[in-house]
C-alpha cells in the first residue's frame, strides 16, 4: 500500500509532536540566546564603529583631542588648516624632534610637507607618519582627513581654474535640525536588520535537516510509516512547524529593536516575507535530507546552498535581504512589494512540488 495522500489533521499532529520535542529540549530558548548574543555583538560593533566615524555623535564617548606635529615653521601652509580643526598642531624644527615627540606619545602622528606652493605647477607632497596600531591610526587619520581635504580643496580652487571646460558642481545642503551619519543608519537597516530577521529562518532550515535525518538514522521512520501516516504527512508536519517558528522569533526581534528606538515600517509584510523565505529554506533542506538521509552530508549541502543563496541575493535589487531593508524604511511601493512577495511564494510552491516528487520516488524505492 502506497500512502501518498496527506491530511491536515495528521500534519498538525506531527507538527505538534515536533513542537513538544523542541520545547522539551529547550532548544528554542538556546536559539533565542544565540541570537541575542549575535545582536549584542553587532550593537557593540555599531557603537564602536560610529564612535570612530563620527565621534561627536556619541557625546558620552567623548574622545580626547589628538595632537599632531608638523615639521616646519609657523608659516607652514598646512598649519592654519589643522589649527582650525579638531586636531591640535605642534610645530617641530626637525624630523628627529617630531619623531621623538611621536615616540613618547606626546603626539599621535606627524606630518611633513614639501616646499611646493599652491600656485605652483608641481604636486604638493605630504608625508604622514602614523602609529602602526590599528585603532589609533584610524582615529588620527579620521581626524586629519577633514583639514587635509580642506587644504586640498583650497589648492584645487586655485589650480582647477587652469583646466579647460571644468565647472565644479555646487549643491548647497540646507540641513534639517537632525544630523546623522549614513554609516550608522545604513548599518542598522542594511546590515543588522535583515540579518536579524532571517537568522531564525536559517536556523529553521538546519533544524529541518536534523528532524528528518534523525528519523532515518534512528530508524524511527519505519515505525511511523506502519501507522496510517504517510511520509508526506511526516515531512509536511515538520516543515509546517519549522516555517512557523521563524517569523515568531523575528517578531521578538522586532519588538526588541523597537524598544531600542529603531522604528520598523511594514512590520507585517516583513514577517510574511520571513515566513515565505523560511518555507523556501525548510523545503530545500527537506529535499536535501530526503536525498542524503545522513545528517553530516545533508548539513554540509544545506550550508553550501545557504551561502549560494546569500551570494545570489546580492545580484538583484529586491532580494529578500534588501527587500527587508526597503520595507523597513518605507522605500518600496506597496505594489512592487506585493508583486515580489508573490514571486517568492511561487518559488516556494515550485520547490514544494519538487519535494512531493522526491517523496514519491522515495515511496517507490521501498
Amino acid at each position, binding site marked *: 500500500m502506497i500512502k501518498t495522500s496527506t491530511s491536515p489533521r495528521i500534519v498538525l499532529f506531527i507538527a505538534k509532536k515536533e513542537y513538544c520535542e523542541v520545547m522539551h529540549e529547550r532548544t528554542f530558548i538556546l536559539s533565542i540566546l544565540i541570537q541575542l548574543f549575535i545582536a549584542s555583538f553587532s550593537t557593540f560593533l555599531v557603537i564602536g564603529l560610529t564612535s*570612530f566615524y563620527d565621534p561627536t555623535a556619541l557625546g558620552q564617548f567623548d574622545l580626547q583631542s589628538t595632537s599632531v606635529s608638523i615639521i616646519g615653521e609657523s608659516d607652514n601652509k598646512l598649519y592654519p588648516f589643522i589649527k582650525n580643526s579638531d586636531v591640535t598642531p605642534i610645530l617641530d624644527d626637525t624630523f*628627529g624632534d617630531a619623531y621623538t615627540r611621536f615616540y613618547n606619545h606626546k603626539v599621535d602622528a606627524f606630518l611633513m610637507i614639501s616646499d611646493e606652493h599652491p600656485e605652483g605647477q608641481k604636486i604638493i607632497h605630504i608625508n604622514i607618519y*602614523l602609529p*602602526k596600531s590599528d585603532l589609533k591610526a584610524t582615529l588620527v587619520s579620521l581626524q586629519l582627513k577633514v583639514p587635509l581635504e580642506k587644504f586640498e580643496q583650497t589648492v584645487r580652487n586655485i589650480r582647477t581654474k587652469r583646466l579647460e571646460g571644468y565647472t565644479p558642481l555646487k*549643491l548647497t545642503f540646507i540641513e534639517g535640525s537632525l544630523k546623522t551619519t549614513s554609516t550608522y543608519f545604513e548599518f542598522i537597516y542594511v546590515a543588522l536588520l535583515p540579518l536579524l530577521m532571517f537568522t531564525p529562518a536559517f536556523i529553521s532550515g538546519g533544524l529541518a535537516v536534523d528532524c528528518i535525518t534523525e528519523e532515518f538514522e534512528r530508524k524511527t521512520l519505519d515505525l511511523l510509516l506502519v501507522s496510517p501516516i504517510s511520509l508526506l504527512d511526516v515531512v509536511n508536519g515538520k516543515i509546517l512547524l519549522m516555517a512557523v517558528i521563524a517569523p515568531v522569533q523575528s517578531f521578538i526581534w522586532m519588538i526588541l529593536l523597537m524598544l531600542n528606538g529603531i522604528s520598523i515600517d511594514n512590520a507585517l509584510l516583513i514577517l510574511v516575507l520571513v515566513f515565505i523565505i523560511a518555507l523556501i529554506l525548510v523545503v530545500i533542506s527537506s529535499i536535501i535530507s530526503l536525498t542524503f538521509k545522513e545528517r553530516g552530508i545533508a548539513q554540509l549541502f544545506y550550508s553550501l546552498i545557504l551561502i549560494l543563496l546569500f551570494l545570489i541575493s546580492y545580484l538583484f535589487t529586491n532580494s529578500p535581504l534588501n527587500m527587508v*531593508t526597503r520595507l523597513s524604511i518605507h522605500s518600496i511601493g506597496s505594489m512592487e512589494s506585493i508583486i515580489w512577495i508573490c514571486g517568492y511564494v511561487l518559488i516556494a510552491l515550485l520547490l514544494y512540488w519538487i519535494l512531493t516528487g522526491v517523496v514519491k520516488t522515495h515511496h517507490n524505492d521501498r
Partner: protein
Amino acid sequence: MIAPILNLMAGWSTIAKWEFFRSKQKFDKKTLMLLVIFISLLIAAAFVVAQTNLNMNNDIYHVAVTDPYLIPIIETDQRFNCITVNRSTAQNLNINNIDLVIIDQKVYSSDTEKSASASEALEKTLKKYRETVLLSHNDINNTHPVWLTIHYLERQEEFHLMENEQDKTGTEQSIPEKPQTTNINQNDIETYTQEAAELLNKEPSNILPVNKEQVQQISKNNLLQKQTVSTPSNFAPPIPFTAVMYSFLFLFPIYFVSQFYSNSIMDERANRKCELVLVAPLRSVDIVVGKTLPYILACMMILSIVTVYSKGLPTSMEVIKSSLLILAILFPIVLLFFAVSFFCAILSRSFKELTFGMVFISVVVSGYLFFPAMFANVHAISLISPMTLIVNLIEGDTIKAGEYLFSTFTFYLVAISVFGFGTFIFREEDLFTQKPITEKMLDCIEMYLLHPYGSVFILSIILIPYVYMAQLMLIVMLFNLPMPYSILIMIFLSAMVEELVKSIGIFTLIKRKMVSTTLRNAALFAILAGAGFFIGEKLLIIITLAPIGASVFGLVMSMGTLLLIPLIIHITCAMIVSCGMYYTSTRWYLPFLGLATLLHGLYNIYLLRGIIFD
C-alpha cells in the same frame, strides 16, 4: 619498555584508521560529484558577485529633483532613486515618500533620521563624482594637486590597565602612570630622517602617479591592505578590526570540520553503534583520541592552506617561521572547538539539540576570539585573543613566547579539561541513555571527584578559565544596557558564576552521597573550594598578566593583607551554600546559591562603589 607504548598506540591508531575509512565511505561517487558541482557553483556565484556592485542597499533613498541633469549624477550611487518634479510640485511635495528634494542647486532634507542620512550619503556621492570628473581631465598636477604618503611607524604601546569588574582585589584607585622613559634609538631617527628627506626631494613621479591609469590603480580600495599613497579625498583610514575579518577566514574551516566531528560522535550514540568499541579492551581515552585525531589533522591541513593563502607561499625562512607560528596559535583554538563539540555531542539528546549546542558554543567561542581582538594594539586585553597574535604575524611582526602563552594558556586549559570531563562520561550509561543534561554534567564532576587526583580544591582551580570566559561573554551581552544597570547586573551575574563554580563540587558530593553529610565535612569542603578558587584566580592573574608588564605583577604581589579579605569572602560564600545544604537538603541548593551570590555581589559593589556611584 617500548612494547606497552606500542600497545597503547595501537589502541587509538586502530580507532583513528577506522574513523578515517568510515568517513570516506560516507562520500560515495554521487555525493562527491554533487559536492564538486555545488562548490564550483559557489565559486562562479562569488565571481559574478565580485564583478557587480553588491546590491545590498539598492534604492533605499528617494530623491526628487527639478533639474533632470542631476539624475545621472546622483544615480551613479545605487542607493538613490530619482524622480523629476516641476518646481511647483516640489514645494508641496509630500515629504514622506521622498527623502530629499533638490530645487535648483539647493538640497532640502526633512527632520527624519532617514532623510538626514540620505543627505549625508548624497554629499559623499557628489564628492566621489567630483573625483571622477576631475580624473577624466587627465592633468594630475592640476586636478589632484595634493598627495599623501602614509607611513606606519612602530612605537611602544602604552597600556592603561582598564579597571575591570572582575577585579576584586580591592584596588580601585588607578595605577599611577609611569613616566615614559626615552629609550628611542638614535640610529632609527637618523635612518628615518634620511629616508624622509629623500622621499620629499625625490621626483614625485617615482612614488606618485603621473597619469589617470595610475591614479585609478591607486584608488582601488583593498579592504585589508593599508593605504600608502593617496589624495586627501581618497584618504581612507585603515579599517579597524582587521583581526575580526581574519578570524572569519580561519574560523570557517574549523567550524565546518567540527560539525563533522560532532556528527560522528553523535552517530556512534544514535544506534548504539559504539557499543562494540566500548566492550573491546580499550580505554575510553584511546577511543576518544582515536576518534578525534583524524579530524584535528584534517582541520590543521585545511588551516595550513588558509595560512598559505594569507601569508603567501613559503619561500623564505621568515615566511615559513611565521606560518608555522600561525598554525601553532591556531592549534589550541582547534582543540577548544573540538573539545566543546565533543562534549556537546555527548550531552545532547537529539540532532536538533546538537545543532543548537554547536551554534551556541561556536558563537560563544568566536565571541571570545573576536571581542578582545577588536582592541588589537590598543589595549593589553586584546592579547587575550589569539587572533590578535595572528594579525600581528600576518602583518609581519614577531611575537614573544610570553604572549603566546598568555593568549593560548586558557585555551589549552579549557580544551584539555573539557576533553577530560567528556572522556569521564564516555561510557554506556551516559552515551546511550536519555539522561537530562544536568545529570550528565553532574556525572562528569562525580567521575572527576572519584578520580585519585580529584578534589573540590582542584576542581575550583580547573573551572576558573570557564569563569573567565563566561564573564567576558557577560560583558558583551550586557553592553546594550544603559551604563549603571549593566555594571550592577554584571556584578551579580559574575558573582553567580563564581559561586556556582565553587559550590558545584560540594553539591555533587552531597547529592551523590559520596561523603557522609556532617557539619565538619560541609565546612571543610567549603574551605577547600573557596581557597582553591582564590588561589586559582590569583595564579591565573599572575601567569597571564606577567608578560604584559612587571608593574601589574608587583601590584598583585604587594597587596599582602588586602588578599586576605577576598579569601575570606570566597570561603564564606562557599560556606553559605555548603552548610545551607547540610542543614536542609540539596533541594535548597539554588536558594542558597542565590544568597551567596547576593553577599558576593554586595561585596563587589562595595569595592567598586567609586566607579558605580560616580
